[in-house]
């Protein structure tokens, strides 16, 4: 996966460390070797993506892809999505929602807010691993814009 020839960093916002580990393992198995920066809560993730001042300038010049879980301990994933998608600097960042929630309205709401992909985590591990590997394959071909 690249963006204009530069390495893309995957920002994984996932409160469950087990999930984070399983996701990472399966992405790797799909041949994705990009750097994965994991966050277990929304505050730290936003600090990284938007900066402590939440201006979004921190991401300037970066190539980021965001993997976002909706159910986080400190804030709702939807709030994070909204903050990223309404910030002029980060609004073009691809955001992949990867969550256990399969609520119809929740899915619609995420797309309304500008989510790029919405994937429900299957409980069955075979399907889970398969879905993540597919996602990894998808990562390996998509183009990522540079953050301004």
């Amino acid at each position, binding site marked *: 996966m690249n963006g204009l020839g530069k390495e893309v960093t995957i920002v994984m916002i996932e409160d469950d460390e*087990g999930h984070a580990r*399983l996701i990472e393992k399966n992405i790797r198995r799909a041949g994705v070797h990009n750097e994965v920066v994991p966050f277990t809560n929304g*505050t730290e993730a936003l600090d990284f993506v938007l900066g402590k001042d939440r201006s979004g300038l921190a991401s300037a010049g970066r190539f980021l892809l965001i993997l976002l879980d909706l159910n986080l301990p400190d804030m709702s994933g939807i709030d994070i999505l909204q903050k990223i998608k309404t910030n002029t600097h980060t609004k073009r960042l691809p955001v992949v929602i990867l969550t256990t929630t399969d609520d119809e309205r929740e899915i619609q709401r995420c797309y309304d807010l500008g989510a790029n992909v919405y994937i429900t985590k299957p409980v069955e*591990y075979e399907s889970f691993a398969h879905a993540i590997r597919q996602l990894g394959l998808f990562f390996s071909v998509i183009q990522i814009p540079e953050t301004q």
Partner: protein
Amino acid sequence: MPISNAAFVRSTIILLVAGMIALLGIVGTSLWLVSKVQTYFAELVDVREVRSSAADLLSTLKDAETGQRGFVITGEVSFRQPYDDALKAVAERQRLLGEKAAGFPAYAERIPEINRLVADKLAELAETVVAVESGQAANAVTLVKTDRGRLLMDQLRDQLGDIMADADRRLEAGVIDTLWSAGALRWTTVIGAIAIIAVLGGAAVIVAQYTRDIVVARREVETLNATLEKRVDERTEELIRANQEVQRFAYIVTHDLRAPLVNIMGFTSELQASLAAIQGYVLADEKPPSADDILEARRAVSEDLPEAIGFIRSSTKKMDGLINAILKISRDGRRELKIERVDIKTLIETGAAAVNHQVSESDGEITIDEKLPTVISDRLSLEQVFGNLFDNAIKYQSPERPLRISVTARNAGRAGFYIEFTDNGRGIAPEDHERVFELFRRSGTQDRPGEGIGLAHVRSLMRNLGGDIVVKSELGQGTTFVLRLPPDLSKVVRSMQA
């Protein structure tokens, strides 16, 4: 206080009975008095008749004596006329007196004596008259002079005079009695009239009161009808809200339970994969394992196996924790509420005393309003509510300033009491104001231990008590929890059951 139907019927019956008794009393007394007057009158007539017949007998005897005297003096028959007339009438007069006096024992006992005296007197008169007729006028004068006639006449006059005097006395007494009866009759009528007016007045008052109560009750029913729709709307809204909460709860619970399940299943599969690598090395009996096999087996044993086991264990533990938390909330919801008088001030002071050490450690201060109410509620629930709020205030205090907690209350009438629990801690972002009350959800930097149960528990406790809790907060400034508490939980419980 409206009169009940039974009370109205009872008082009406009492009044009717009282009125009837008064009327019967008046009628009875009047009849009795009238009959008494009749008796008195009949007696008066009888007495008058006795008196007049006694007077008639006396006057007849006097006539007889006058005639006798005139005849004795003159010897002329014409003078004898009154005597003759009287002689003819005297028997009839005697009979009449006897007849009339028969009703009066006091008179009747005198009759034989009177009759004897009359007979003697007539005999004396006849003797003189016969003497004059036979020409012996001198004998007749002598006979008169013997005074026997005069004495007899005096005795008669006494006897008959006694009867007449007694009759006069009786007449007088009779008149007085009759007058008294008439007076009594008048008073009876007056008292009866007053009694009837009182009964009528009482009945009128009761009817008026009952009518007024009916009007009040009808107005109440009308008001209730008018507000019924509003209350139905309120209830419906509450139901919708409760339903949404249940859905949200089910959603959170299933999601949160599913997350560790994904881990368990995932790492079990990973465990299996690692096992294959180890098997490739350990069970490679025929050919020696390649360098790759060895490396893979080593990595499986040193990294993958412990990692998988660690995640499986922590996920199982997490699931257990979630299930226990759900059980705790469900148990609290089903706990029998013990409804009693609870002094909120004492309760909060106790809660404050329990955390006093931690508060004073950081130069903190707790101020409690003097005017906190006393409510009818469940003490244990309220203790848990305020205990949680104190713990949260301490846990999420701002490191930049000493902790200040204040508790105030205001009375909002029908809605109940509003108790405001304010701290100057780090505050809650606006988008999390509703989220903090959800199960397993927390707000802000996750630098304090906790599972996200406290406020969910507090809200479910408050709603169980017929109240609610909301939050007002500004990030970095502080937080105010506004608790609404009904003054009397037993009424809430009753209206829920109704």
